[in-house]
């Protein structure tokens, strides 16, 4: 295992120490339990946006803490969901009196830990809503799986909800907005190589020099299919094809119902992409992928989207949600509208995303 680390048991703590030293103007890092808090939080009169997940996906989520995006992030161990006590302390530290929106990626562990956290925060008198991001079209059904995983749409949702919170949206409206972004976002990824979890010291999966994994997650877990290596164009066509052709995806998600004061199962259905749609695109590098390759993929993606009668009106190209040093990419397309674009364009200043200020 070749990594720029010290003790494999300490990687999460050490990188957060670097983050704190690098961005004292933007954020504070707390340990025991671990959370990253925006410098200016809590802000009275603003809903706080909180997210988190396993480490190893940097800059997500801690790199999105700052102004106009997340108020707090809770990093777990590498590829392991954070624990409820982290969200409890983070939530108490950033709640500004108008409640907390927790943006949760749809992994069994994350969903359960953030639900437990929401329950604990409510015991503290803080209103909390959890919105689950489940956008990975590589997972085809929700009956025989834990449902679609949360991937690239998370970054877009955090940006848009962060801007909406600044704009004064209340918790209800923010939860709706976040759900809308999720239902309009679709992603799919692939890997050329596996990553190595520092504590394990060896690749999570073996893969031949002429093989790639299609439909990979972001935790080094195997994808849904292994195929022979292809050109960038062919790979882009496979991923974009799954996204563009994805039919309405119905599933049941657990959300908090403030009226019934309980968790309820809600049935939601994804929007499908249609001619004329304006899209926000994310061409995401998995950590070990050179930027140049992402631009090669973007060129083909752009052409495919245009050929489908849609257009990409905003794009992020880079390593925004990674899997340690894995080589590979994911593509995310989010159907935009004027409101989403206005919020996407609003100023943001975080370690990982910055514009307008």
């Amino acid at each position, binding site marked *: 295992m070749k990594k720029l680390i010290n003790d494999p048991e300490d990687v999460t703590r050490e990188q957060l120490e670097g983050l704190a030293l690098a961005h004292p103007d933007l954020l504070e890092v707390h340990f025991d339990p671990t959370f990253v808090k925006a410098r200016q939080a809590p802000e009275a009169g603003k809903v706080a946006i909180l997210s988190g997940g396993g480490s190893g996906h940097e800059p997500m989520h801690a790199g999105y803490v700052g102004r106009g995006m997340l108020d707090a992030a809770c990093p777990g*161990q*590498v590829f392991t*969901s954070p624990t*409820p006590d982290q969200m409890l302390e983070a939530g108490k530290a950033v709640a500004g009196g108008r409640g907390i929106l927790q943006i949760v990626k749809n*992994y*069994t*562990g994350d969903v*359960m830990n953030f639900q437990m956290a929401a329950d604990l925060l409510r015991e503290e008198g803080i209103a909390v809503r959890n919105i689950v991001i489940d956008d990975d079209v590589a997972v085809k059904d929700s009956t*025989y799986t834990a449902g679609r*995983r949360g991937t690239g749409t998370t970054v877009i949702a955090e940006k848009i909800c962060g801007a909406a919170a600044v704009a004064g949206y209340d918790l209800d409206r923010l939860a709706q907005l976040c759900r809308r972004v999720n239902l309009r976002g679709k992603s799919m990824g692939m890997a050329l190589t596996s990553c190595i979890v520092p504590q394990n010291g060896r690749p999570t999966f073996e893969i031949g020099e002429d093989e790639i994994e299609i439909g990979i997650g972001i935790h080094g877990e195997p994808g849904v299919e292994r195929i022979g290596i292809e050109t960038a164009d062919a790979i882009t066509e496979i991923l974009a094809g799954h996204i563009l052709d994805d039919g309405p995806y119905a599933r049941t998600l657990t959300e908090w119902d403030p009226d019934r004061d309980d968790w309820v199962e809600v049935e939601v259905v994804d929007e499908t992409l249609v001619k004329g749609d304006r899209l926000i695109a994310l061409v995401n590098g998995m950590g070990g992928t050179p930027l140049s390759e992402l631009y090669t993929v973007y060129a083909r993606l752009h052409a495919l989207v245009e050929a489908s009668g849609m257009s990409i009106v905003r794009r992020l190209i880079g390593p925004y949600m990674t899997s340690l040093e894995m080589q590979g990419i994911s593509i995310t397309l989010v159907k935009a509208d004027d409101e989403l674009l206005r919020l996407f364009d609003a100023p943001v200043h975080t370690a990982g995303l910055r514009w307008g200020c």
Partner: protein
Amino acid sequence: MLTVLTHRQVIVWIERTAEVMKANRDTLTELDAAIGDADHGNNMDRGYQAAVAKLPGDETDVGAILRSLSMALISKVGGAAGPLYGTFFLQASNALKGRTELTEADVERLLETGIDGVMMRGKAQAGEKTMLDALIPARDAFATARGRGASLTDCLEAATEAAGQGMRATIPMIATKGRASYLGERSRGHQDPGATSSYLILKTLTEIAQEGRTAS
């Protein structure tokens, strides 16, 4: 003939399980690498070390001991296993509040309420290739053994035996819950890591009971 587990034995169970998780850390992680994200051994090891560190050593209320275990697992394991085992022991601790020793009926209740907690939290059923596939057969075997009047140790042996069978029975299963479910057909042929850790937890308790029998 062992008829009860003392609060001391419950504490030893936690300490001994921590050793077992450390010893099996790589094995569990390798099982998770095959169908998950290669962290289950690390998670369980970290969680049980924390549980031992926080153990209320002179506590006599088994409910309180299990609650302390639950809190440590919830705040240190993370992932799916953390809330699931955390809820398992939280529910059990609620059910066993005030007990300073556990009878056969109490141990059955521990399993029953724990499993209810896991099912409530994770919404899985038997046959989905999860820890439940070790836990449910174990509970059933315990209940059956108890029904035919077996000793506590025998009941636990039957439970562990069933947990082991259930654990191995996960090998041909297709996962439909948790991270392994994304693999669909490709999840076949691998033993579920969570079922394996569940088996180890029960096996450790059974060994403590067996030692108690030998000792007594």
